[in-house]
């Protein structure tokens, strides 16, 4: 199923889920799950898990599973898994839920992950976390893409309808073997002649809501388990008895499928990395600051209390960010360190010379060491970006040095570099935009 903006709703998700599970188990070999539980601080454990997971995902990048297509936009399973890992890094509440689930199991059976069957249980908890996260992420993607409100639950409902349609289409295709069930779906007995509806059903757009409702209603009779609209769960309460809502959702899935199937990759898609739009963002803020439209504010379902205090979160993080004096200045050790990680001896001074000290980032990160600054770019924009000066590249790879190389250049451990990098990013997030 594809909807505007969504990336995790196609059959490739199964492989994304498996890859995240397998790489998480690898990560838990290197980081004991017990070390992730309270009282270890939330932010540190989240960063540690995401970084270890990301390394494992990078290492798996060339496997057949990771390289397979993950969705119809040309994103691979590996890219989608990595994207979700980074989403988790920005959503500490989801991490908290995982830690709570882990702690509860740990209280029941201490160190359960080391016991027989414990690995499967650990994997299941990871699966649960990412399964919820993908719908949250896609609900947000959908809203950003088309401007209509959408909840994770609504994404789940779309997917249920899509699956139901798939089931109905399958039954229709084999209608001779399933005359009774097809009859229950159509609401009239089916005899030996081909029902016209079976011939007419071409896509989800042609699926009628009453078929979905009758399919769900009669499912228990044919398979022993109740249909999704007929369980005790309140999950689909809002659509359950509303054929109009179901019809609209089916039509939307069908419409977008037809539309996106006809286009090349990534239109209406969150892949555009060009920075031009940020000018529009600053302009909108500036114009409002210079001549705000007098009230009333046109805020959707304004709930002011909910928003209070949001803006201060970044500032608090910045206040905690330690300042790092620029430690390296034409240090003769630089050359030694650079060569130890297979970089040209003059790498740091050349990279420093290629920086624009007057740039916004240059000014904001002036107190950080150069390896920390490069680590910030590595995390935010990736290893290769056409806006990087050549002098920042490792000539061997044509990309920024890796975190391991940068840590060696800075003569700090990898966890320390990560910590400093994340503090620098927190500082940027909270930074006022001055002069540009």
């Amino acid at each position: 199923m594809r909807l505007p903006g969504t990336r995790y709703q196609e059959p490739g998700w199964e492989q994304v889920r498996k890859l995240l599970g397998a790489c998480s188990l690898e990560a838990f070999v290197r980081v004991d799950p017990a070390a992730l539980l309270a009282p270890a601080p939330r932010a540190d454990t989240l960063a540690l898990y995401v970084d270890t997971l990301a390394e494992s995902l990078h290492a798996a990048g060339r496997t057949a599973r990771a390289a397979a297509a993950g969705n119809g936009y040309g994103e691979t399973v590996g890219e989608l898994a990595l994207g979700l890992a980074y989403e988790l890094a920005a959503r500490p509440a989801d991490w908290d839920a995982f830690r709570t689930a882990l702690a509860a199991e740990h209280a029941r059976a201490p160190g359960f992950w080391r016991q027989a069957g414990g690995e499967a249980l650990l994997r299941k908890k990871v699966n649960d976390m990412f399964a919820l996260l993908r719908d949250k992420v896609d609900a947000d993607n959908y809203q950003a893409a088309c401007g209509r409100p959408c909840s994770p639950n609504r994404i789940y409902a779309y997917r249920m309808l899509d699956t139901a349609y798939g089931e109905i289409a399958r039954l229709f295709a084999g209608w001779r073997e399933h005359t009774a069930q097809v009859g229950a779906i159509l609401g009239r007995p089916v005899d030996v002649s081909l029902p016209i509806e079976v011939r007419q059903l071409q896509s989800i757009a042609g699926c009628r809501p009453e078929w979905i409702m009758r399919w769900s209603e009669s499912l228990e009779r044919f398979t022993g388990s109740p249909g999704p609209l007929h369980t005790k769960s309140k999950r689909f309460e809002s659509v359950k008895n509303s054929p109009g809502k179901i019809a609209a959702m089916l039509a939307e899935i069908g419409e977008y499928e037809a539309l996106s199937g006809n286009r090349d990759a990534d239109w209406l898609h969150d892949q555009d990395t060009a920075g031009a739009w940020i000018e529009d963002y600053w302009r909108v803020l500036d114009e409002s600051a210079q001549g705000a439209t007098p009230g009333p504010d046109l805020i959707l379902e304004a709930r002011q209390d909910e928003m209070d205090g949001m803006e201060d979160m970044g500032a608090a993080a910045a206040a905690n960010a330690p300042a790092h004096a620029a430690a390296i200045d034409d240090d003769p050790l630089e050359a030694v360190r650079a060569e130890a990680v297979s970089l040209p001896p003059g790498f740091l001074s050349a990279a420093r010379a290629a920086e624009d000290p007057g740039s916004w980032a240059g000014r904001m990160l002036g107190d950080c060491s150069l390896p920390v600054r490069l680590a910030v770019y590595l995390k935010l924009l990736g290893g290769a970006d056409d806006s990087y000066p050549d002098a920042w590249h490792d000539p061997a790879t044509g990309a920024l040095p890796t975190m391991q190389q940068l840590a060696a250049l800075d003569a700090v451990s990898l966890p320390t570099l990560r910590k400093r990098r994340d503090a620098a990013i927190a500082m940027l997030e909270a930074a006022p935009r001055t002069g540009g």
Partner: protein
Amino acid sequence: MKTTSEIDRKLQGSLLMRRRVEGDRLLLADAVLLAALDGSRPLSAGERAALQASPLTARRLRTLALARRGTRAAANDGRWQGSHGMLRAADGGAALRQLATDDGYWRLHFVDGAGAPRVILQLAPEAPFAARLLREAALLRVLDGAGAEVLQGRLDADGECECAWPFADAPAAHFQRHGAAFSVLPVS
């Protein structure tokens, strides 16, 4: 106002895009965001605060901003609704040889055809709509600043269209007296 480099813009964009707020939702309607983007209605103070507090709303703004930019790019590319130009420096008595439109895609050449002056409209081959206009042999007209027709015709294979200068005054004098401007327009 700003001299933000591409790398700064990308960094700032990435910083904005990676923010997440638990329970975030769209706080501003598309109509409000679009009116702010086209400058017709700046955000109110409360709306500005909402945009800054809600990463999801900022992402929606990004989608709309990119769509606007995409539409504008598409409009510049292939579609063409006319080009305009002006008579530049005060003419020091020398005969006018040529004029160009502001977008640089068209030139008007003035030649003296044995006592009978002629005007040639020439399309720059690098114009984004050049291929289409040539393929369609579109009918074009050139108007002076007062709206009178200087020329009408179709481009030849070289992207040119030529005819006799239709006015009594020489080109420099004529344009000076008629708005000191000209337009090249498609005839629809």
